[in-house]
């Protein structure tokens, strides 16, 4: 159920983001989701792609600093309180969330969210137990 996320270190200067996406594009790697965390000087680009191992290798070869982390992808009802229900599960189990981001998928009536949590395996277990839909990596990479 764990989804592999690729993180890339980027300096805040023009053209860097374009460089990463171009590198992935020319290697036929499809991006399903992305988010950027930025500070004044640098940013961390987080990506969910269809071929994470290949993407990691190619970006490293191109001189980027890259890491790969396990994250959890969930689908929640696209209605008020939909996300809250899922987050409450994690909170009641004291599983901290490092960061999260929502992304657009092709499924209707569901909002897709990537969660980076302290204990991903336990998180998945608890979410599933509470009827929150956790997406498999295959499902996510296909998006």
């Amino acid at each position, binding site marked *: 159920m764990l989804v592999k996320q690729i993180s890339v270190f980027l300096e805040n200067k023009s053209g860097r983001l374009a460089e990463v996406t171009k590198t992935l594009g020319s290697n036929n790697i499809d991006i399903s989701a992305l988010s950027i965390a930025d500070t004044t000087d640098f940013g961390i680009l987080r990506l969910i792609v269809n071929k994470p191992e290949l993407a990691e290798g190619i970006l490293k070869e191109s001189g*980027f600093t890259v890491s790969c982390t396990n994250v959890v992808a969930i689908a929640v009802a696209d209605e008020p309180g939909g996300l809250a229900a899922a987050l409450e599960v994690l909170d009641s189990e004291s599983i901290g969330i490092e960061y999260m981001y929502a992304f657009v998928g092709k499924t209707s009536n569901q909002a897709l969210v990537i969660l980076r949590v302290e204990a991903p395996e336990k998180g998945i277990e608890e979410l599933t137990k509470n009827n929150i839909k956790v997406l498999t990596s295959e499902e996510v990479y296909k998006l």
Partner: protein
Amino acid sequence: MQYWNPTYECMSREEMTRVQTERLINTVKRIYHNVPFFRDKMQKKGVEPGDIKSLDDLKKLPFTYKQDLRDTYPYGLFAVPLSEIVRIHASSGTTGRQTVVGYTRRDIDTWAEVMARTLTCAGASKESFIQVAYGYGLFTGGLGVHYGAERIGASVIPISGGNTKRQLQIMKDFGTTILACTPSYALFMAEEMEEAGIKKEDLKLKAGVFGAEPWSENMRKEIEERLGILAIDIYGLSEVIGPGVASECPCKCGMHIPEDHFIPEIIDPVTEEVLPPGAKGELVFTTITKEGLPIIRYRTRDISSLNYEVCECGRTSVRMDKVSGRTDDMLIIRGVNVFPSQIESVLLEIGETAPHYLLIVDRKDNLDMLEIWVEMTQSMFSDEVKRLEDIERKIRKEIEGTLGITAKVKLVEPKTIERSEGKAKRVIDKRKL
């Protein structure tokens, strides 16, 4: 342990003092009679050759500065007729007019001798294949190592600097066992090696003699690990002779100086007083066998200290500590004396950073600002912003604790900082004073 010339390398202190005294007295006489510029200096100080009777009298003699070589450009300090000069080298002249040095046939012989000791110190023998990746030409590095390597009977590969791909190919194909170049170029080669798909196991490399720029212990560790070799620090400067002025042995506990040719002193760069053994200060050299350009009390501007204890390797020669900075590279930031090497050791003690960094000094609203660029490495990187900010904070705190100045730390992408195949550029000073 192997010595090239045990008679001198393992000589008793008493005997060495006798050799040095005799040679010093002769050198001073020669220079006084043959170099008008230096004779004037001595006369102004009220010193005559007859006043120099023992090593203790060395401190009575005036200093020689790099500026003196510039003022007498090109041949004003030569002590022999120009017909006796068989080789001329010159410094790059990046910090002013270039300085010219000349060698007689015997000087070239002396140079090969001291360089042979250096290479033997690093474990070289007639069986070795020595790849000389120091630049050949007016720079003393290439030819200096070359003659020493030939003297011991090793197979010399005179490839000179640059063209890294070819360097690596030759290193692999020719079975190079000893590499001679600047430490930053060695590290650059290690990086390129990974990219060229050459593994350290593919090489026969055993040791490297690295010099011509200051480097840290951690940089040594990195070179040793990545190339799988023993990395030996060597020291030299063209004004004294070139490479061969000092070299570490495998004990890596200071660089042995061939004292039968060069007498070192450590002085306080401000008061110019001679400092006792062990004290940190400016390194000063007097040559006592050179003919073409004998030099008295040359101010190297390098910061070091001297250790007279007998080394584990059995050599009795005095050892100089790794150069920890330059008196003239010293940056004064908000009134604090800062050596780039101090910042380097802070970065390295943090242990998470690779040795690639750049210091940018600027002045805004009459206040000096120090910015430190540190290249991101794979091991430092995290997908969480707070971890990266922690690293920045840690570096900033360490700098503040060590130097007492605040600095802005900026993490930059790998290979942002310019790599050179020669000396690494560590400082950009934008202040217009």
